[in-house]
């Protein structure tokens, strides 16, 4: 944009709107105020410029220590305009149903296949003869083996069969494969897979699984069974870690309402109420302490379960401990201090005195009013309320506002009129209430 990069010098106090020269700052301000009301913001900034004292950045005032302290700590940051809005979680869109539809259609195939294999596996391991030849017969009875006479190469690794590379069969699908391509499924594990309720075979330490104690399977069948086993494992695995963790969480769930209750009881004591006594609140405090100890103990236990350092599992256990320690420190150990018996006494005494005073004042007021009523009751009963009202501050206030309204009307400031009228109405209502209460 071609700026008329001016440097033209403007002298004097020109009105920014009509460019009249007003000779002085104050004249300009008043001119502005009366003639250009719509430019309120400009006016405001003019006033600011004229009105404010110079303030510099390096503030050397020695403000009272205590005051600064309080001011710095008081959290007045939540300005009004943010509180106006109750914010709810933003827009979300779920595509879970679509995913499940696609996945379901696809997995159905696998599921039928896995089921077929499981039925076969069940038949295989149930009553399996130990004698090798009988076992072979049993296996072929359950799953017929493919005729391999025309197969020259292992279908999996494509190496030729010969004297050293002999043909074998997968016990679950009956397909042909070489020894190198075979995988062996531990028969004990196989039993566990088909009957998860059966007692788990004691894990033999690192025993190699061979033809003897295992089932020869092709990779495909092995994977399907392995997957099935994993799903079962996850379902059944309730490890020590899980148990300890759940216990810890349950203690935390108990601690939360306990702390809230404690705060409530404590506040009640400080307010001088008699709902709870010190012993109650102390007992509550003790209970929270117990819960904190329990959480502390369990989380320490979790942190020391044996794992290899640096693994995810180790990091998990550390994090749980860290979170628990933080929770104990922030939520359970930072409880408010209880008042002493003496403090409580003092608060209650003050509260009682306050109430006393209030009752006394009320009584005096009522009596005064009755006296007045009686005084006035003589000559002019009908005008009782009007005479004693001349000095009522509410009336005075109302008159002032009426004056404002008149002025605002004259200047056609109707928005102002509306606000003032509303105020006047409020005052009238208040005044009538006052009259009613003084009558009774």
């Amino acid at each position, binding site marked *: 944009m071609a700026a008329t990069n001016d440097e033209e010098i403007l002298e004097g106090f*020109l009105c920014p709107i009509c460019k009249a020269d007003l000779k002085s700052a104050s004249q300009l301000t008043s001119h502005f105020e009366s003639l250009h009301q719509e430019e309120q913001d400009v006016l405001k900034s003019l006033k600011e*410029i004229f009105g404010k004292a*110079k303030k510099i950045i*390096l503030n050397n005032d020695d403000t009272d220590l205590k005051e600064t302290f309080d001011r710095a700590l008081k959290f007045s940051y939540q300005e009004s305009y943010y509180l106006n809005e109750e*914010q709810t979680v*933003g827009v979300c869109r779920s*595509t879970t149903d679509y995913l499940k539809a*696609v996945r379901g259609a696809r997995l159905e195939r696998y599921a039928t296949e896995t089921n077929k294999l499981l039925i076969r596996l069940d038949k295989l391991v149930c009553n399996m003869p130990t004698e090798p030849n009988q076992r072979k017969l049993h296996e072929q009875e359950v799953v017929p083996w493919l005729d391999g006479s025309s197969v020259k190469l292992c279908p999996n690794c494509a190496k030729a069969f010969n004297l050293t590379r002999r043909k074998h069969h997968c016990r679950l699908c009956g397909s042909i494969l070489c020894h190198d391509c075979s995988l062996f499924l531990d028969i004990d594990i196989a039993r566990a897979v088909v009957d998860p309720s059966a007692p788990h075979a004691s894990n033999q330490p690192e025993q190699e699984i061979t033809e003897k104690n295992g089932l020869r399977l092709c990779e495909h069948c092995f994977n399907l069974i392995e997957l099935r086993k994993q799903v079962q494992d996850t379902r059944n695995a309730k490890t020590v870690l899980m148990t300890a963790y759940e216990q810890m969480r349950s203690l935390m769930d108990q601690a939360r309402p306990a702390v809230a209750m404690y705060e409530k009881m404590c506040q009640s004591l400080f307010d001088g109420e008699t709902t709870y006594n010190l012993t109650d609140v102390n007992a509550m405090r003790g209970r929270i302490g117990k819960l904190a100890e329990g959480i502390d103990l369990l989380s320490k236990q979790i942190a020391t379960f044996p794992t290899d350092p640096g693994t995810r599992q180790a990091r998990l256990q550390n994090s*749980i401990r860290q*979170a628990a320690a933080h929770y104990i420190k922030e939520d359970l150990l930072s409880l408010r201090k209880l008042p002493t018996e003496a403090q409580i006494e003092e608060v209650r005494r003050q509260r009682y005195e306050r109430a006393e005073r209030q009752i006394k004042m009320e009584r005096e007021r009522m009596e005064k009013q009755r006296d007045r009523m009686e005084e006035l009751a003589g000559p002019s009963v009908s005008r009782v309320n009007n005479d004693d009202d001349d000095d009522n501050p509410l009336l005075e206030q109302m008159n002032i506002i009426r004056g404002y309204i008149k002025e605002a009307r004259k200047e056609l400031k109707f928005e102002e009129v509306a606000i003032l009228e509303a105020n006047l109405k409020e005052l009238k209502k208040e005044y009538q209430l006052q009259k009613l209460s003084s009558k009774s």
Partner: protein
Amino acid sequence: MNVIQAVKLYITKMTEESGPGMKVILMDKDTTSIVSMVFSQSEILQKEVYLFERIDSHSKWDNMKHMKCIVFLRPTSENISLLCRELRYPKYGVYFIYFSNVISKADIKTLAECDEQETVREVQEVFADYLAVDRHLFSFNIAGCLHGRSWNQHHLQRCAQGILALLLSVKRRAVVRYEAASEPCARLAERVRDLLRREAVLIDNNIPFNGEIPTPQLLIIDRRDDPVTPLLSQWTYQAMVHELLTINNNRVSLAHLPEVHKDFKEVVLSSEQDEFYAKNLYSNFGEIGQTMKSLMDEFQKKAKSHQKVESIADMKHFVEQYPLFKKMSGTVTKHVTVVGELSACVTRHNLLEVSELEQEIACQSDHSKHLQRLKNLLSNAAVRHHDAAKLVGLYALRYEKHASNALPSLIEALKNRGVSEQLIKSVINLLEYGGAHARQSDLFGLQDAVKITKRLFKGLNGVENIYTQHTPLLKDTLEDLIKGKLRENLYPTMGGDDGAYGRRPQDIFVFIVGGATYEEALCVHQINQTYSGVRIVLGGTTVHNSTSFFEEVKAAMQGVHRTHTRHIRNV
């Protein structure tokens, strides 16, 4: 319209939907930043999220089936394939997947096909797709969004998606307006409009049309219209820290300081997690120093009466007596370190003097005086080369068309004081980037009678604070918009003006292509407080300080031939 709250609500929702149990959150680089802007690690730990993993890390497979996995990713094709790999060999028991933006059906299908173990429980789009810097400030952390004056396509897409997400996250419809003179603004406005159209059903279903209040407005403007604001030294806490120490995702590195305590090598400055910071981020530097000193004195006084804090019992006791201490002591020490460094910078580099001249050049009009003082400062060895270049840049912009413009001699002066060629080139780049030819607004108030007079008054009556005279151009733009006076020919509405023009909007989103600044964030904060009912959220491709702004300008001017500075022959 609190953007921090919006992101927090999404993340809380994610941690809650998966139910009780040990959780891990699996994220990418971007979503890690998004989350870390609004939650501290200890806050997330309290939500039973114990592990933070990156989808692109190549750590070894572990069986962690006892954990629930919350996946939070941007919907990029790279992330989809990484997630497929994860689902094929799942480490965790179940997966709750959240994408930070719209994801295609094809991608869901790909995921479904990989989920042979049926570990996925949820797939959702949540729209936490921006960095929530403050409650009214967001950024995409894109440095150098333009290349050769036009969008890097990848960045354009990122911004459009992010703005769509912003609107959805605070549940607002919006008409899109943009700076007419800026090509990049027009491109972004179009892209946002297209995305809004594509998601019309989602918007209609979730954000009911409210005829009672004026439609919120999204205003897209160009940094090139105000290249001055990012150049000025700052005196409010947040802005000053960013200018002198650089804030990156709410983190400030102090590792370069000698003798810095190991806890403060990197400090987190977040108004959500740090009350002192929240309270003081807009305070000026002097006030903060004072507050801090008082706090320290107070604490030391108290600490003296309770020296013995060794056992847990002692600690408990101490904390019971001074719950405030527990809250504040850590943060106060941190701020003491930061403020100490700022203060050292100010003295070391004559920043008060530099700032005073910057403000005067930006806000007043006195060529010969400014030139003289500028020359003096250039010969002052304590002034950093960076500040020297900044000052010359400001001068170049302010007096670009002045009859006695002395830019060549100032450049000579920069050369003489040993300023790098790179930095000198920045001055020229700046002029090409944001000179008079590139601006549609009256940045220096040279044409507007009101502004001219205002400036005159300032000169006559003195100013409130010589270091904070400047108000960003954004203030005028926003006030015009609030009053329904922002001109339709300069800031047209996408799809034509449907009567929205002239209606005073209450909810406003303003996005600066080329980056926003903390000074502008402060300005928006003040407007929000001044105009009741008005809520403005400011965003930028990034949040600049002067250093990053020079980089931005450099990227934007890459490969562009000099057309407006050819007469300056000594560069």
